[in-house]
């Protein structure tokens, strides 16, 4: 998987559980010699087996089931200051949370635009009416739906929307995962501010 995914897990474990826990995770996954204290290269493409080993090791290290850890990873990616750049790129998807949901069909393409060799699984949004949506990740890696759920919950809050999300397991009659999203109020509170262009960072 793309190094960006592995560095995301690296940042999450380090920030949420401490550097010692992260180093221990690497040791458990048998990756210490290869990756070491310097960590992953964000722009390199690693073997899928590396990410699988990493997630299993992290779950074992912190003593939590993988699904719950993945959900927290999703939340972290949207709400932690370290990953503010990612949160901003996601917010470009729409002015409101509902608009954003409708842009999820394009998430794969938008991501490829930013990082050509990062190929996310396809997402398909079904509008069930009345603010209810079914989001289907047809052939993502196991656990992708949980990361999405954590991220979408945090994004709903970021937009100021009141929404309930539920993981529905395999959906759409095919393999993969699906999420049921009920947007009760897209403008429940002000949400976090998003300016189309921010002040320039000093070089």
């Amino acid at each position: 998987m793309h190094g960006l995914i592995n560095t995301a897990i690296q940042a999450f474990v380090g920030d949420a559980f401490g550097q010692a826990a992260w180093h221990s995770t690497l040791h458990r996954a048998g990756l210490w010699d290869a990756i070491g204290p310097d960590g992953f290269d964000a722009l390199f493409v690693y073997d899928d087996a590396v990410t699988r080993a990493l997630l299993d090791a992290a779950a074992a290290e912190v003593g939590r089931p993988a699904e719950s850890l993945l959900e927290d990873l999703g939340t972290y990616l949207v709400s932690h200051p370290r990953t503010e750049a990612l949160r901003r790129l996601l917010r470009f998807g729409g002015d409101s949370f509902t608009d954003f949901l409708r842009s999820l069909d394009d998430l794969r393409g938008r991501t490829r635009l930013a990082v050509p060799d990062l190929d996310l699984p396809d997402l398909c949004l079904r509008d069930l009416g009345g603010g209810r949506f079914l989001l289907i990740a047809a052939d993502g890696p196991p656990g992708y739906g949980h990361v999405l759920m954590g991220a979408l919950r945090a994004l709903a809050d970021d937009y100021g929307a009141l929404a309930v999300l539920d993981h529905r397991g395999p959906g759409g009659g095919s393999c993969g995962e699906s999420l049921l999203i009920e947007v009760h109020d897209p403008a429940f509170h002000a949400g976090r501010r998003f300016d189309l262009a921010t002040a320039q960072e000093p070089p």
Partner: protein
Amino acid sequence: MTAAAVAITPAALDRLLPLYARLDAGTVLRGLGPTLARLLGAGALGQRLDAVFGLTHPARVRTAADLCHTTPLRLVLHGPVATPFKGVAVPLADGGALLNLSFGYRLQDAVRDHRLSGSDFAPTDLANEYLYLVEANTAILSEARRASDRLRGARALALEQALTDPLTGLRNRRGLDRALARLAASGQPFGLIHIDLDHFKRINDTLGHAAGDRVLAEVAARLKRAVRDADGVARLGGDEFVVLLPGLRGRARAGRVARRLLRDLERPLPLLPPAAPLSASLGVALWDGAGPAGAEALLLAADRALYRSKGTGRGRITVATPADTP
């Protein structure tokens, strides 16, 4: 067959072209899209185009028709923030012109300077995608820079390790070869002293290898302290060392330097019994900076001189003669 003219209300025009301006034949502003209106502020309507914008291309306009002949138009907003625009103008039936503007590649600056949001652009405008791409690009570049920095650091470390003898911290054979090649290429005269410790095997055999290693480390330290910063000290492995001395000239002087080094090495060492102090055999070779020296030839000459030191009793220095260089 020409298509019929399209009648469009100002409100519809506002939705499609938030950055439009309608000018009369004399280039007076008669209508503005909502975003442009906000940018120009109250009082812009009723003014001539060149009262509100600086004209870059064309430099001057008298009539609306003048605008329609140039593509793309280049204008700059008057005022504290000189936002540049590019534009295109088309003629209207009444003799005026409809001018549509865009920010071009300076879009991000314009959005920042004027606090624009998504709703200030038409829904079909690529502003959103463009700004997304700019931010994504910046984020990826900073990741790339970080990776590049780390790589450079790792490479420097790896190179350093590849050229260093781990026991003494001196240059190893590879490091010596590089330093020697640099000196030979510089055209500067220099000297080379090959040092071989005497009876070192005996030290290892009687005191053990750990003690032997400590002796080697002490020798390295003494050599480093004895020479200048510009000089190089290398360990060739075992109990052999090489000292490089840029700028060293003259056999007499070289001999003095080598004898000084030898006396320093022979100073008592706490590890060794006083009855069997450390000593070494030295071979010195010089290059005058002009002759056809190879690094190899110089090492060979120093080696021959060293051999003579060993052969004539050890614990001494020998300076190579021209005969030692083939």
